[in-house]
């Protein structure tokens, strides 16, 4: 492992972790502010990066501002570690920061993710960085950004409830899939980035720190550890996660994890768990068990947010 001094030496041609020191300081200060005001969108000076806006520049800047040579980095794109975006970001971070990489969610110290939160419960020493395309939860109901800001200031979120009401009137259910608005620390409504509804409860009273960053919109916000995060819901129409009961992962045989639906010729579909790092661990564990401890159990599958019966780990959170 290289030291910061080596990595930072000028003959490499780049600053350590790519961003210059001013950019990193800017980001760190904004991150501190975001943590201090949970759910509040902090504007920041978003830098140019060697990837295009919309490909995770917000998340990448936060990751680069936080990463050190001792970190273990995992990058997730739609649950997968091996998609083009995830692979490139992971390689870039590793090369620029000298950090180790992994696909194992419980081994990582820094997880940058797009669209998913891992199935295994994250711990206190971990930081989750979510890439956010649109940080403004009020965008769909108020297109004027300065008005939206005023609404945040006054905690005037009636319009979001109204949009839920309208969905119930028109479709008899809430049709929001991803980016389900939730109230953070009883104060600010935030968009939890395009994670599915399945992942929203994972933010509530979580042990880990979550940082959400939008590079194009130049805003970042945070859910500090052990903070209340409540999806908007009516008293008599509770928030529900995706109904995937009866879906079984064809690779692991598990149920009640967030699944990808793979359409088959002939009209049917098979399902696989979307979190590939988790699948890898489960599959690796099975032969271990059969070999009766011939190899050291290198990666025991940790406790998950949802158990095999689909119950969320915090009792009574999902009604």
């Amino acid at each position: 492992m290289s030291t910061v001094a080596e990595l930072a030496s000028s003959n490499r041609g780049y600053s350590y972790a790519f961003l210059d020191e001013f950019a990193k300081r800017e980001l760190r200060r904004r991150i501190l502010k975001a943590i201090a005001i949970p759910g509040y969108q902090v504007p920041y000076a978003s830098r140019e990066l060697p990837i295009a806006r919309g490909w995770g520049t917000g998340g990448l800047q936060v990751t680069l501002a936080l990463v050190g040579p001792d970190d273990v980095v995992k990058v997730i794109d739609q649950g997968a570690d091996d998609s083009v975006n995830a692979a490139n970001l992971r390689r870039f971070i590793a090369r620029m920061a000298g950090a180790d990489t992994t696909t194992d969610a419980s081994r990582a110290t820094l997880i940058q993710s797009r669209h998913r939160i891992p199935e295994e419960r994250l711990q206190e020493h971990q930081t989750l960085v979510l890439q956010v395309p649109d940080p403004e939860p009020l965008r769909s109901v108020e297109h004027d950004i300065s008005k939206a800001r005023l609404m945040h200031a006054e905690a005037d979120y009636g319009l979001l409830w109204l949009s839920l009401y309208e969905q119930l009137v028109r479709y008899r259910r809430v049709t929001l899939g991803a980016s389900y608005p939730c109230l953070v620390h009883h104060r600010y409504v935030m968009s939890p980035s395009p994670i599915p509804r399945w992942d929203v409860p994972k933010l509530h009273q979580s042990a880990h720190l979550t940082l959400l960053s939008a590079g194009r919109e130049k805003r970042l916000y945070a859910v500090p550890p052990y903070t209340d995060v409540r999806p908007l819901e009516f008293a008599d129409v509770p928030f529900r996660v995706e109904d995937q009961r009866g879906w079984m992962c064809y690779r692991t045989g598990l149920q009640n994890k967030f699944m990808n639906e793979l359409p088959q010729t002939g009209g049917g579909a098979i399902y696989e768990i979307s979190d590939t790092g988790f699948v890898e661990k489960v599959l690796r564990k099975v032969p271990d068990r059969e070999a009766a401890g011939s190899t050291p159990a290198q990666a025991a599958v940790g406790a998950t947010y949802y158990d095999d019966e689909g119950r969320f780990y915090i009792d009574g959170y999902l009604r």
Partner: protein
Amino acid sequence: MVTSGRDAPRPVSAHAPVIVTSPPLLQVRGLVKRYGGHVVAVDRVDIEAYAGEVLGIVGESGSGKSTVLRLLNLEERPDAGEYFFDVPALAGRNLFTLDRMAQRRVRTFDIGIVYQNPHLGLRMRNTSSGNIAERLIVAGERAYRTLRLAAREALAASEFPLDRMDDPPVRLSGGMQQRVQLAKAIALKPKLLLLDEPTTGLDVSVQALVLDTLKRLQRETGVTTIIVSHDLGVIRMLADRVMVMRYGRVVEQGLTDQVLEDPQDAYTQQLVHAKL
């Protein structure tokens, strides 16, 4: 017999006259609003309205009557003036100096408004029932079924056809849009109802029906109402008292019959005769 308007619920105003001893529900003093330095839209206007009363404001276009209403609805800040509302939580406090949050609370709970242009008062692309539900949501209601029921009740009270309660206002007729606005205005049973030319732009027969609804609602709920109109017929039908405005000033005020039958001010005379 002297009845204290505060203790007893007010009797039906149109039929049983009582001596009013309570202070006015609404008191505005020295209201001034200028636009752009030299346009004086409202010039030292005083308004008093008692509980259960209907006050009409008439005047030609540009006389400042709509501006008065916007100021009363706390949509704009006046350049001078005091505004008192005789409800326990706000007693003795000038509403114009409240902070935005407090003003919003007043607008949510104590004031209902119907605009001439439904686009100002309604979210045209949301459902009609949703427009009413929004008010209750802002007031803190979080049960879907309660919202549905309250929306239905308010729409029924304003005689809106309930089978269309989930149509967006863009797809409703003008008269229906005004009924949705009215339902939204009365959903939280406000103390003060502001009507800004509520029937202008409707054809005569629909206008009559909407006016009937307004009159009935006002009589049933006894809500203090301020109605702005240039149509003396509307004022004659609804208002107990009338204020005539011109160039931002009140030129004459008094009981509706008195002012309209025996106008003293030259301008009011002109106005009345132009109408007749």
